[in-house]
Structures are given as structure tokens and as C-alpha cells.
């Protein structure tokens, strides 16, 4: 397999070109924005919860990013639908990385994990779910709209 094909697997290109869950939820129950300081990419995540206030009914994302970040966030929206907020708060990053299934350098890893981090921050803000230390910095950088 060529280097291109091992990173830009067919499933990655499919999610990149036809992202699932791309858009905005008005009146979302949980929302957050985050930025990758390495490249300036921004992603916003919107969550609508089911009537029980716990189950993720719908997830959408907006923002700009590379194929890896867009595809990873697209896959993430499919993975988390129907699951409980507190379960996603503690979802290990490897669960997403296994789904993505491609070798990632440390820099591209940040691309792949941005959406997951922002989702965890959104749930933390709305539901008070625990936010592991590795994502705490993301929560501090939410207000970047003014400069």
C-alpha cells in the first residue's frame, strides 16, 4: 500500500468529502468551540440531548480543518449518538483512534483528537461531567472570538 493510501484510507476520504453531522444545532443543550494552536483550526460542537437529559440524541460540528480532523470528527459524531453523556466524558481516546485506524504522527494526532476534546468540554460545561487534565487547556481557550 502506498503512503498516501495508508493515511488517506478510503473510509477517511469518504468521511472527509461527505462529512456526517456537519452543521449547527440551534438551541443545543451543550456546545463548545476549540482551536488547535498548532495550525489555527477551529471546531465547534453542538449536542442535543434526549428527554432523559443524559442520552446524546444528535451531534453536529462546524469549523475548518484538514482531512484527518474533519474525518475524525465526522466519525466521532456517528460513534457517540445514542450513548450517555457521562460515558462519552470518560471515553478513552484510543476508542476513536481505533475507529480511525491509521498511523498518526504526534502532530496529526492533535488534528484527529480536536473534535473529541471539544465534545468533552461541551458536556463538561453543560452537564458537569468530569474533564480529564489532558483536555482542561482546551476549556480555557474557548473565548477566541474577540481578537
Amino acid at each position, binding site marked *: 500500500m502506498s503512503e498516501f493510501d495508508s493515511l*488517506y484510507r478510503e473510509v477517511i476520504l469518504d468521511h472527509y468529502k461527505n462529512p456526517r453531522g456537519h452543521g449547527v444545532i440551534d438551541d443545543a443543550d451543550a456546545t463548545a468551540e476549540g482551536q488547535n494552536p*498548532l495550525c*489555527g483550526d477551529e471546531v465547534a460542537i453542538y449536542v442535543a440531548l434526549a428527554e432523559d437529559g443524559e442520552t446524546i440524541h444528535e451531534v453536529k460540528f462546524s469549523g475548518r480543518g484538514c*482531512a484527518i480532523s474533519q474525518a475524525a470528527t465526522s466519525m466521532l459524531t456517528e460513534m457517540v449518538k445514542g450513548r450517555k453523556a457521562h460515558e462519552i466524558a470518560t471515553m478513552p481516546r484510543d476508542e476513536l483512534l481505533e475507529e480511525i485506524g491509521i498511523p498518526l504522527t504526534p502532530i496529526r494526532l492533535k488534528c484527529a483528537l480536536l473534535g473529541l476534546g471539544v465534545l468533552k468540554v461541551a458536556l463538561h460545561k453543560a452537564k458537569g461531567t468530569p474533564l480529564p487534565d489532558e483536555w482542561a487547556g482546551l476549556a480555557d481557550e474557548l473565548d477566541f472570538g474577540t481578537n
Partner: protein
Amino acid sequence: MTPQLKLDAPRIRADFPIFEQVIHGKPLAFLDSAVTAQKPRQVLDAVREFYETSYANVHRGVYTLSERATEAYEGARTKVAGFVNAPSAREIVFTRSATESLNLVAYAWGLWNLRPGDVVVVTELEHHSNFVPWQFVARKTGATFRMIPVDEGAELDLSALDAIGGDGDVKVVAANLVSNSLGTINPIDRLASWAHDQGALMVVDAAQAAPHRKIDVQTLGADFLAFSSHKLCGPTSVGALWGRRELLEQMEPFNLGGHMIRKVTFEETTWGDVPGKFEAGTQPSAEAVGFGAAVDYLQAVGMEAIEQHEHELAAYALDRLGELPWITLYGPPADRRAGIVSFNVDGIHPHDVSQVLDWEGIAIRAGHHCCQPLMRKLGVTATNRASFYLYTLPEEIDRLVEGLLKVKEKLG
């Protein structure tokens, strides 16, 4: 067709050991010299020789090795002073980087001299290193922070100066001579004369200019000039600040500790002479020696020849990339830009562009280039940037174009 070059790039290239390797099976096309430059053997040898024959801490011992080290370190200062035509080597402060040089001015001059009602002026083209320290110091002192805007053609809109001058007492104007993200060459002479009319100081970030064109601080109009070694083929972790001597002498120190003192008692401390006053602690002496060797190397090639070579490469790259309708180019025309070409491929993120190019052995930068406010103004989060230096070959620009065709085919 490739341009005629006066500088013998293939021969220069042979001085750089890094080009002896292949990347992903291809010869390395290093088109990211704006972020840092590769090192010639002459610089590497100078550093090694210093460690092998002359290494001890500088300005400390009375023994032979320490004296030899001090002589080499101060010799490097003299070379760096000559490189920017400083009136005296005492006006050159060695720092860790251009960033530290700019922070030194912001902290040691700005914090002590700015107050509410004063205006600090930067440009929208600044690298974060000449933007964030001034934004911070303005906030800390209550001074007003203003930016000279960039016009549609990616050049500074100097018509904004009148309004900025009306906002208060302008005390400092900080601008880069060459924009690291777009390659724009800024009119420092006009900015400096405006600054001086306002009674303000002119601080010039020359990190992106010093490696590529001749700088004369006695005619530029600057009061402070910051640049680094690593971008001009020297080692990392050393930079320089040139400042007018009377300003350096009036200023409070920046880092405090060993070497920068005249006398220390339990009650108080007095400061040493410039430049030692700003060089606390063990200095990057081997790196400074390498910095001096890099300056020698560039001057032997000739700064005018380097500037001309890069200008021709930039013009060639703009022509070749301009042929591709799905490329958006940023920045001014070739005659007003340095060897930096920023662009985007329609619909394809710069990360993906540079990833695919890497597999072709081509290294370019993808990102915001530490210029987030400018990127916001351009309406993008990131761009691709190809940048050139004395060892860059026109064939490498041809390879870049071929690589971009591949990017378009695979991801477009």
C-alpha cells in the same frame, strides 16, 4: 524555463550536509527556510572547533581557555555588529532568539516607559513575537494598543497613521521589515520617520529580513533591531538585539543574575555596562561563535547576490503557481516581496497539502505562521508557505508544482 541565476546555488548546496540524504526516496527539497535555515559545514565546523579547542565559560576565568572562549565570543559579537553595520559592537546584545530580543525591549523599555494615554503601534503583518509582547505590555501599563492595517494587496495601509496618531501620545512603533507569512517588504523608512515625528521609538523585527538582504542600522531608521542566528544558517538558541547605545544605557535590565552586575551588596545592586547588563547567566557561547561563522559565510556569498537569487525564485514561483487556476496566492507582487510565497489550494487544507508533498520529498510550511490575526483578516485559518534561500534551486519549484498537481489529483 528556469531563470538565470548569478549565485551558484548547486555549488552552495554542496556545503550543506543535510542535502546528502533522501526523504521518502526523493532528494530533499527544503522549501521552508523562512521558519529556519539549514546549516553549512563551515558553521558546524566552527562550533565543533570551539568546543574542541576553546570551550570554557566566557567572562569568568583568568585561565587560557576562558580567555580563548571570551575572545571567540566577543569576536562573534564584532562580526554580528558588522553584519548590520552597527556603529559599535557594544550595541549588540546576544539573546536566545529574535523573540527574546523583542521581549527584552518590551519589558526593559516598554514596562518602564509606557503609561495610560500612550499609544503602542504594531502592524497586522506582525509575527506573534512582535505582537503579543506589545499587546501584553500595553495591557499591563494601560497604554492603548493600535495596529496599522493591511490593505487588499497585503501591504501596510499607511493612510491609517493620521488616525492612529490622534489616539494619544505614540511612544513606540513595532514592525517587521519583511513579513514572515506573506513576504511583504515593509517601508521601514517611512514608518520610522513617522514614528520619530511623533517622538516614538522604532522597533524593527528583522528576523525574516536579516538572512536575505543587506541591513544597515545606520540608515534604516530603527532604534532597535531584532534578529536570530538560526534563520541565517547559524545555530539555534542565539539571537541578537541591536539598540542605540544611549537607549540601551538608559534602560533597566531584563534578566537578572550573574555577569550583568557592577556591584552587589545586601542592600542593593548596580548594573554593569552594556551589553553585559543584558546578558545574565551563562551565555550561548558556542552558538554565538556559530552565529559569527554564519555571518562570515553569508557575507562571502554576498547579501546582494542572495537577495537577487531569492527575488528571481519568488518571481518564478509566482509565475508557475499563477498558472494553476485552483491556487490562491497571497501577498504583494514579486518586486515588493522577499523569497516567500503563501498560497492555498482550493478546497484542500494546508495540512493535507504538505502531507502529500512530504511524500515527494518536499518540505513546506502549513499553518498560521504565528500570524493568527493576519490569517483572520485574510479569511483563512492557515495557508501553505514555500520559502527560499541561497541553496534553493529553481528545479525545486518545478517539483513543488508537480507535487501540487498530485495533491489536486488525489484530494481535489
